[in-house]
Every structure is written in C-alpha cells, then in structure tokens.
C-alpha cells in the first residue's frame, strides 16, 4: 500500500487530525532542520525555526495540488524566517554597538592533545566552511545550501526561491565564487 501523499496528510491535519500532522512533520523534519542548521550555523536556532515552520504549516496551511510535495513550501517558509531573523539581528547589532561598554576578552584555550589533532583539523575545516557560508547574503546562501547540501534539483530550488531556473544557477555560481574567495586564505594557509 502506498504511503499517503502530502496533500492527503494536509487534508487530515486541517480536519483536526493530530496523526496527519505528526506524519507530515516526521516526513519532512530532518531536511528542514538540516537546511536551517546550515543557513543559521546554530543547531538550537535551527530546531526552533524548523518548529516554527511546521507550526505555520498548521496555522496557515498552503494549497497543495494532488501528489505535490510540501518540501518547497517548507523550505520557502524556513528561508523567510532566516531572512527576518537576520534583519532583526542586524538591528540588534546596531543597538549593541551604540550601547557597548567594553570588549570582553577571550580566555586562552589549552593546546589539544596530539591524538585529537586530526579530528580537530577536520572540525576546523567544517567550522571555517560554515562560517564562510554564514557570511554569504541569504539570497546566495539559500540557493547554495539547497543545491549543494540538500541536493535539490534546480527546478525545485526555483520553486522554493520563487525565481527562474537561470537565476538559481547564477546565484549558485556567484555564491560559490564568494565562498571560494573567503576560504582561499584558509586553504592557502594564510589565515590566522
């Protein structure tokens, strides 16, 4: 027997079936959390925003064609949440800058034991990549993460971002170029 489609589950959830909503959440939660983790760089925020995306799904359900997947809608809501969150963060940074008092100092960390070095180097590479990714403008970051990490086809990314496929391709290329620029000093060993 075929599993129920997203639109079937949406109809059930709209009729008040908690089981319908539960099945929808279980079906889509991991890609959404993973996408938001890469977009925000923070696991906790990613979970919180993913939950909010699903709550919005319940409160303002989209109109789904028969057999259509809910994933593009969820990714679109998640992207908008990131955008709005970053706008808010920019305003907060400005206020913090206006009312700053002193610079906190970072305590020195102890050198790692030699047996952990390899793991730490891999972690550092991931951290640098994540930091460079987080520094990209949302427009490029969203296209890049959806393509390179979520491995969505171009057509689906275009549906998520609401733009033509050609624009998606150009945003991905531009995003990749910006990322390479940012990571080049680290790759070349020039970064501190």
């Amino acid at each position, binding site marked *: 027997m075929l599993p129920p489609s997203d639109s079937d589950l949406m109809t059930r959830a709209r009729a008040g079936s908690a089981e319908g909503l539960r099945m929808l*959440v279980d079906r889509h*939660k991991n890609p959404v959390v993973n996408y938001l983790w890469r977009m925000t760089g923070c696991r906790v925020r990613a979970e919180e925003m993913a939950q909010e995306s699903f709550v919005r799904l319940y409160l303002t359900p989209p109109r789904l064609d028969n057999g259509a997947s809910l994933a593009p809608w969820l990714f679109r809501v998640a992207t908008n949440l990131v955008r709005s969150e970053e706008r808010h963060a920019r305003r907060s940074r400005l206020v913090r800058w206006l009312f700053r008092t002193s610079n906190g100092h970072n305590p020195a960390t102890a050198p790692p034991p030699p047996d952990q070095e390899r793991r730490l180097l891999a972690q550092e590479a991931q951290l640098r990549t994540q930091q460079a990714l987080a520094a990209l403008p949302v427009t490029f970051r969203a296209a890049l993460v959806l393509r390179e990490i979520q491995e969505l086809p171009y057509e689906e990314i275009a549906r998520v971002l609401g733009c033509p496929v050609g624009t998606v391709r150009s945003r991905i290329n531009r995003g990749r170029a910006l990322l390479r620029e940012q990571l080049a000093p680290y790759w070349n060993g020039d970064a501190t």
Partner: protein
Amino acid sequence: VKNARPPDRPPDSAAPDAEADAVADARLTRALRDLPHADASPTFTDGVLSRATAGTVPSARRWRLAYPALLAGAAALGASLLLLRPSVRPLAPPSAAPTEAVVRAELEQLRQLRREQRDLAAEVENLRAHPREAFLPVVYLGRSGDIDLVLDLAQFQHGLRTGEEGEPR
C-alpha cells in the same frame, strides 16, 4: 592564416588558471558535502504538535509581534494630541472661560511634551556621538534631607590616583 585572431592572453597562463579553478571548485564541493548532516531531536515532533495545538508563539517572538500594536498605540496617542490643538477644534465654544482654561492647560501640556521630545532627541544624538562618555560609572548612594548623594566613580578614581602620587589637588 587568414581570419586568425590573436589570443586574448598568453596561451601558457590560461591552462594553469583553469586547472587551479577546477581544483578550488572541487575542493569547495567536497568541503560543503563534508559538512555533517543533522537530524531533528527526538522531541521535535511532540514540540511542534504541542505548539501547534496550543497556538502559541515562542516567548522571544512575543515582543516582536507586540511591536505593531505598540506602534499603533503610539500613533493613536499622537493623533489624539494633534486633535487637542485649538486650531483643529472648530466645535469648541469661542468665548467660554472654562474651555479657554482647559485649552491653555492642554497647550501647556503639549509644549511640555514637545520640550521632552526635543530633550530626548538631543540625548539620543549625544549617545550616538559619544557612546562611551555617556556611560560614566555613577553610583546613587541615597538621599539625605533634600540632597541626593551621588558618587562619580571616575572622579573618585582620579582622586585616589592623585592621592597615591601625593600631589596636592
């Protein structure tokens, strides 16, 4: 050779550039794919269900949602202050003494509000211009009779320093 075009750049430099580009591109793809994947926490679905059925919003967002209401309240207050101006009150009796007194009092309130607004704007401007100086450490010690006792730590520190050096003030 007829119609042959000169190369845009020396033929030797093009190949290494393209190769370096390809290497960097492959490295970037690998770096992105190497990023670990996250799964939702075990309590994720229950969290969504409880929030959805309760119709609640996260506490951090409550204030953000309240902003429009606060702005609307402020706009309503501004509008009511504008309506209190005598020029926009055509129905007011022209020569009734109590009404004139009321209008005068309201005008005075309005002037006071404008003064406060100007003072606040100047203060904000000052904060922007001198963010550090605006936060000199001051401790309020209390009240003695009609006098507020305030200790300016910057001056106190200066006094200590000059005292240590033994210089007369």
